[in-house]
């Protein structure tokens, strides 16, 4: 057998490594959890890595999965070997093309990190609902259950598709396999060449479309022929399973790893068998090994080739002794007789019996497990075997949840454990920003590659993007690891963030006598006393060995900033003894050298210094015989929280959402808003404090705050009664609104410490200009005082909305109805949403495209869209990524239709109602705040008047009366949606004359999925799929709808000119037709300190990179140029702008010469574009009067 490399990779890399080597054209579109496969392929091609035949595969990012599938289909037709990677919704978008590819019998292999399809909610996690939506297409479907299998079966699929001409969908479980890091044996190029028969490639080439031998494919066929032609390909499907089996045999000869179409594991005379596919089969395998070793007659049948389903192979693989079968599906088909694998198994058994392949028909029950990466553990597996052993086994059960509504769930023992005793298990709690996960991935690599041990790592991330908590689950040991579930006990628990001890049960998994390593910002002698009582108790009861290090101090002293990863990694190796200490340290250093050596000595040296300083600072902490602390963990949510929040949300916040029963949930995905205020994470180390005498009360800080954590209020002095000590109030400086008090207050538990507010504060102390009106100060010393102050601040009355001017300052006295989101610290998107919620929140419907804004806007446990004291607030929904403009348009049409009905009913009932009320309800102006308030009062009056009337119309009008008040529809999304996947829909919606508003939060990159280029990515920026710097310029999205003539368009950047942003949002909303606001949003994917975001926005405008303008069609009718330029002639250079951001600097660092050319082009384009705008801004549209023309939008009734 050949000697192969041992590598430590995740499932995505394992599959992509084969796919890249076996392909020539790769068209992709990013979607979690498959994005990394495409990214890796792109990185490899960018680095010149060749495929098996010596050429570098061409990797192209498309505008959607539909586009990727189209490109792949074309590439295949023209005779290339092609692949793609996708998941979930993306896979669904590929379906139409997949039918074509299959119908044309095209060798093609795609790799899917199987993910939940959005239903009542979106989920990025893993199950089979996406791939099961493809089972009818005609693709062969091959399932992998582990990282090694994802590698091996990828190779088998690529070889088999060429031989069989049946296209292959190779899939593995999203996250559980795609993101699990494991030690595997890597297939060599020679292995792949042996598997892939060159003659099959030649045959594929010969079938290619070429004018040298022209043929036609894609005809339209009619009733006379389609049917027969559709049956003409049958024999290819008949032959396919045999072909796959043959490739598997060849593969076994090569590698020693033998796969079958169906792999049976367990007791040779098993009576109870579980049938399933994917990673869950590994957990069953592990449990079966355990139970069978104890004499239980149990087994598992792992389905590898799900399509074409070979009845003969299936029947042959089952032990003849089998009496009862449980088929487990990781998907749900509501309303079906059963979930898909179950149906297939039932049919296959019956057919096999009829064909005489089975002696008897076993009893079959169906079960569902693991939706959206729900844990699937040996305890659950045992529960399935147990029910099979029952007199009357449960049918159509679920396992892994508590279903107290329809009572489908099997009870299981969470403590049931089958893991081998010699497996070392370690769990690490950290923050994203501290590098814990990266260090653990590296540790697995070191252990995997330096020892004979098998190694596995799995990482659980936060649903929040700021202050994100990570939990790393590591296993290593002498036996193959099949535990495809989280650690439930660990001999080593690392807590890299002291603050997490107050929020989570960190030691829950700690085994008695195990190690507890803690990063504590205290001297060793103080560590014990600082622990909460619950933690102390657990340390004592479990006799844990406690070690502590002040890693942040070590990091600071060695110039590592907040990166404590190599320090904590060194501690782990030093304490655990997995490797000899010196050897481990040498390996850590080697890894650092390898990762950063090419990127600069300084980074390497600082890491080395941190590692060298670690051991001297690591201390064993003596623990008393009992807990001594009086401090206990604070409650997770306030007592004041609503019942639902306390009952459901709090459990999720605690990380215990798995325990919630079905009855806790709404059946249709409807959730209450305004929950983020109950999740107090307190993630900031420093927070801004107000220095009132210096403040000029401009409210700019409040405007830019991404988390609505710094707020201004205006109130009568009497309201100060009962103010807590330390609450600061000053006279409001205003001639228009005299005699009022003003307070600027920070939410101490919601501030993320991003510094953006301090950076924009224009007021400086005249004696000491480094001090501003707000200054960052350590949070802990002022925490209690500021908590009291903030509570009091919130209790102050809101100022009358109708009397506040709609300028920057005035808007910040309006209550924000978007607060404390999970967006990144310093986010450049959320200030726009917060402003939107302040301006129109009480009448706002938001259609939100999938992306960052749908995640921080709608990811549980808590969400930021809030309600005011009247109970009004934004109603929000996320449909999909690609359809958001259409989704929002639908909302508008519904509102208009409801309002029409309400007006019709009002007119119908008018004779019975006060005439003036009816007239006003129908005719009054609602273009300003007062108009809205008056209309609401009229609706109130109408309801009163309706109270005395009877009849069906009365009831209908009562229901629809609120629709007489104007509603504001905003279609919100990022540039990936607006410029790429949703552009067609956006264009269509804008082309209609409906009153919708579109807000594009333009980060110039796919931020949520990790920085892939979009058509908004500027020239010269590095992004994934444009690693060397984007070659083409940014699409001028604003210019396009201007050509319609009836669309309001604005280009804004709050950091450059906040007043223009406010004005644009107001104008867009007021405009009685479609409006598009494109908003510059700085982003962590730009690579600089987000505190400088507003400053960088200024440079964007000043360099002409981001000109500010408003295009208002109404001006044209008045004989004025519709386009107004709001930023002056560029004064700064594009270079000045670009040099501040890593996304541009990266390009320069790779190839300075090329960057200079890109920069010059960017500079020219920016100037040219500005010059064009300047000319347009001087252009009036000649008004031509034509008889009988309907009035323009500007004058139509709203």
């Amino acid at each position: 057998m050949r000697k192969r490399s041992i590598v430590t990779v995740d499932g995505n890399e394992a599959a992509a490594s084969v796919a890249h080597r076996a392909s020539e054209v790769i068209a992709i579109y990013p979607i979690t959890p498959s994005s990394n496969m495409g990214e890796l392929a792109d990185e490899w091609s960018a680095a010149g890595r060749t495929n098996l035949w010596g050429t570098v595969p061409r990797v192209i990012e498309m505008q959607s999965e539909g586009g990727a599938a189209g490109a792949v289909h074309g590439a295949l037709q023209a005779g290339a070997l092609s692949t793609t990677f996708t998941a979930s919704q993306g896979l669904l978008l590929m379906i139409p093309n997949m039918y074509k590819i299959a119908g044309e019998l095209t060798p093609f292999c795609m790799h899917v990190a199987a993910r939940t399809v959005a239903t009542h909610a979106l989920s990025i996690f893993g199950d089979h609902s996406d791939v099961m939506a493809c089972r009818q297409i005609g693709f062969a479907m091959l399932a992998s259950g582990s990282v090694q299998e994802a590698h091996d079966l990828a190779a088998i699929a690529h070889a088999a598709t060429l031989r069989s001409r049946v296209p292959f969908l190779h899939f593995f479980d999203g996250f559980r396999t795609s993101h699990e890091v494991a030690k595997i044996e890597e297939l060599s190029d020679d292995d792949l060449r042996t598997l892939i028969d060159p003659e099959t490639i030649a045959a594929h080439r010969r079938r290619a479309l070429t004018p040298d031998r022209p043929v036609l494919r894609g005809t339209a066929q009619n009733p006379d022929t389609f049917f027969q032609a559709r049956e003409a390909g049958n024999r290819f499907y008949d032959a396919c399973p045999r072909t796959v089996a043959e490739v598997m045999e060849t593969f076994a000869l090569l590698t020693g790893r033998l796969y079958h179409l169906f792999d049976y594991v367990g007791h040779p005379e098993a009576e109870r068998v579980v049938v399933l596919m994917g990673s869950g089969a590994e957990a069953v395998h592990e449990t079966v090994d355990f139970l069978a070793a104890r004499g239980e007659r149990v087994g598992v049948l792992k389905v590898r080739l799900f399509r074409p389903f070979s009845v003969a192979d299936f029947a042959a693989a089952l032990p003849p002794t089998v009496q009862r079968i449980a088929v487990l599906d990781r998907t749900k088909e509501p309303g079906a007789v059963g979930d898909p694998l179950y149906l297939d198994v039932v049919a296959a058994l019956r057919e096999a019996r009829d064909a005489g392949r089975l002696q008897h028909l076993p009893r079959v029950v169906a079960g569902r497990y693991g939706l959206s990466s729900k844990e699937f553990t040996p305890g659950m597996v045992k529960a399935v075997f147990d029910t099979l052993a029952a007199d009357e086994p449960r049918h159509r059960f679920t396992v892994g949840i508590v279903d107290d509504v329809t009572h489908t769930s099997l009870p299981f023992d969470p403590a049931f454990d089958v893991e081998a005793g010699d497996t070392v298990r370690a769990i690490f709690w950290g923050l994203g920003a501290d590098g814990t996960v990266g260090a653990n991935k590296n540790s697995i690599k070191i252990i995997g590659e330096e020892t004979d041990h098998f190694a596995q790592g799995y990482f659980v991330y936060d649903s929040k993007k700021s202050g994100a908590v990570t939990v790393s689950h590591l296993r290593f040991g002498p036996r193959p690891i099949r535990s495809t579930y989280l650690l439930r006990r660990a001999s080593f628990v690392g807590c890299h963030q002291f603050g997490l001890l107050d929020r989570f049960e960190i030691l829950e998994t700690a085994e008695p006598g195990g190690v507890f390593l803690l990063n504590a910002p205290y001297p060793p002698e103080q560590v014990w006393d600082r622990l909460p009582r619950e933690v102390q108790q657990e340390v004592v009861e479990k006799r844990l060995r406690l070690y502590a290090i002040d890693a942040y101090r070590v990091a600071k002293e060695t110039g590592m900033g907040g990166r404590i990863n190599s320090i904590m990694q060194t501690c782990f190796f030093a304490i655990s003894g997995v490797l000899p200490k010196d050897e481990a340290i040498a390996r850590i250093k080697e890894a650092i050298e390898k990762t950063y050596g090419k990127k600069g000595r300084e980074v390497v040296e600082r890491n080395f210094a941190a590692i060298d300083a670690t051991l001297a600072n690591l201390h064993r902490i003596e623990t008393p015989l009992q807990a001594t602390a009086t401090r206990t963990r604070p409650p997770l949510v306030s007592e004041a929280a609503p019942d639902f929040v306390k009952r459901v949300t709090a459990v999720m916040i605690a990380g215990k959402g798995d325990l919630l029963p079905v009855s806790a949930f709404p059946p249709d995905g409807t959730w209450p808003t305004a929950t983020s205020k109950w999740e107090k994470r307190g993630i900031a180390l420093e927070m801004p404090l107000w220095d009132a005498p210096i403040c000029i009360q401009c409210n700019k800080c409040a405007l830019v705050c991404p988390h609505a954590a710094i707020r201004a209020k205006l109130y009568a002095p009497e309201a100060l009664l009962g103010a807590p000590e330390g609450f600061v109030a000053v006279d409001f400086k205003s001639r228009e609104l005299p005699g009022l008090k003003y307070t600027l207050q920070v939410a101490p538990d919601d501030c993320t410490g991003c510094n953006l507010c301090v950076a924009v504060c224009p007021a400086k102390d005249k004696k000491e200009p480094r001090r501003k009106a707000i200054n960052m100060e350590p949070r802990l010393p002022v925490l209690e005082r500021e908590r009291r102050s903030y509570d009091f601040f919130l209790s102050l009355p809101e100022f009358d909305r109708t009397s506040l001017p709609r300028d920057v300052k005035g808007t910040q006295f309006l209550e924000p109805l978007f607060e404390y989101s999970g967006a990144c610290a310093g986010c450049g998107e959320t200030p726009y949403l917060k402003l939107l919620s302040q301006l129109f929140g009480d009448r706002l419907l938001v259609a939100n495209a999938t992306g960052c804004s749908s995640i921080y806007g709608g990811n549980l446990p808590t969400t930021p869209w809030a309600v005011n004291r009247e109970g009004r607030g934004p109603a929000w929904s996320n449909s999909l990524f690609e359809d958001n403009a259409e989704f929002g348009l639908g909302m508008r049409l519904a509102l208009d239709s409801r309002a029409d009905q309400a007006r019709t009913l009002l007119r119908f009932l008018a004779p019975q109602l006060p005439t003036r009320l009816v007239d006003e309800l129908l005719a009054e102006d609602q273009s300003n705040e007062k108009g809205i308030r008056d209309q609401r009062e009229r609706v109130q009056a109408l309801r009163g008047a309706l109270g005395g009337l009877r009849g069906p119309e009365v009831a209908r009008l009562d229901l629809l009366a609120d629709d007489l008040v104007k509603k504001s529809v905003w279609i919100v999304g990022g540039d990936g949606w607006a410029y790429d996947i949703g552009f067609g829909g956006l264009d269509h919606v804008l082309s209609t004359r409906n009153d919708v508003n579109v807000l594009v939060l333009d980060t110039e990159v796919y931020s949520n999925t990790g920085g892939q280029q979009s058509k908004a990515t500027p020239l010269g920026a590095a992004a994934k799929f444009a690693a060397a710097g984007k070659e083409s310029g940014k699409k001028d999205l604003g210019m396009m709808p201007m050509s319609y003539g009836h669309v309001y368009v604005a280009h804004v950047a709050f950091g450059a000119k906040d007043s223009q942003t406010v004005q644009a949002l107001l104008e867009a909303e007021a405009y009685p037709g479609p409006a598009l606001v494109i908003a510059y949003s700085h982003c962590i994917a730009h690579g600089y300190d987000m505190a400088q975001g507003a400053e960088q926005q200024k440079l964007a405008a000043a360099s002409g990179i981001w000109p500010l303008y408003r295009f208002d069609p109404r001006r044209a009718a008045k004989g004025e140029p519709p386009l107004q330029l709001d930023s002056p002639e560029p004064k700064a250079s594009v270079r000045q702008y670009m040099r501040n951001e890593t996304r541009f600097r990266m390009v320069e660092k790779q190839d300075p010469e090329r960057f200079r050319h890109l920069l010059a082009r960017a500079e020219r384009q920016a100037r040219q574009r500005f010059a064009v705008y300047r000319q347009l801004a001087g252009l009036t549209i000649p008004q031509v009067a034509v008889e009988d023309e309907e009035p323009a939008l500007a004058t139509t009734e709203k």
Partner: protein
Amino acid sequence: MDLRTRYLGLDLPHPFMPGASPLVDDLDTVKRLEDAGASAIVMHSLFEEQIRREQVATFLHTEMHGESYAEALYYFPRPESFRLGPEEYLAQLGRIKGTVRLPVIASLNGTTLGGWLGYARAMEQAGADALELNVYAVPSAPEDSAADIENRTVEMLRALKAALGIPVAVKLSPFYTSLPHFVGRLETAGLDGLVLFNRFYQPDIDPENLDLNRELRLSSSVELPLRLQWLALLKDRVRCSLAVTGGVHDGRDAVKAVMAGADAVQMVSALLRHGPSHLRRVRDEMIAWMYEHDYTSLAQMKGSMSRASCPDPSVYERANYMLMLQSWERA
């Protein structure tokens, strides 16, 4: 006209060259400088401090947000060849050497010895014909004495001379208590050339915004006399070659600098303002001036107005202030 000169051991057809600046970042500009007749190319300074800071900043900005959120394990592409710092400089040096036939003088800026020698050696290996050591730093630490600062510079020079085969010039600021004494020590340490003087980013106060502005203002001829004075005072006391930088904008300025003792004339502001071709214009102006005033070679005028050769050396020295004041009063 014979404009030949010798600077840092290099025989040059004339003394005009671009001074250390971002001009040479662009190969096209380098080519245009050669076309404009530059006698050598001086590269911009490799800033040790800047390199370190940028390496760390890039590391933090690209790594800080990674591995935090399930949908985005990292936010930037990860190119395998990523040049941060000196590699880029060396590559540019190599490209310039490959593009032009002129001597190339590399430049280093730093204040400590650490990490430096490696860069300097690499520059020599990459083909630098000479090295300009820019020792400017703001001596803001009260614990640093004048002697400490001078000693460090001497040490650096000594180390560089020991490590390198190519000539080394030192570019100084005018702010030394006793420049002639210090220069003497540098010569003892092996100095090959002196570049007078550095110009720096000097912060200006923005009184309305209570802020500091850091912008590099381009020089003007007004700054030349300071250089002339020290060229004239040092010319006859040193063996090393002298270059003027800062304040030469036209042929007449150049004539003065050479008369004061400059072997080489470096220009930056004038070229940034008027483009690379201005170098030729200044040279032509100088030639015209020399024809007009019956000079036949640069050698005739070099150092003719130095302290030793000028009509009244005391004008360069102590009485200077009084005389200037009086002359101003007369005007």
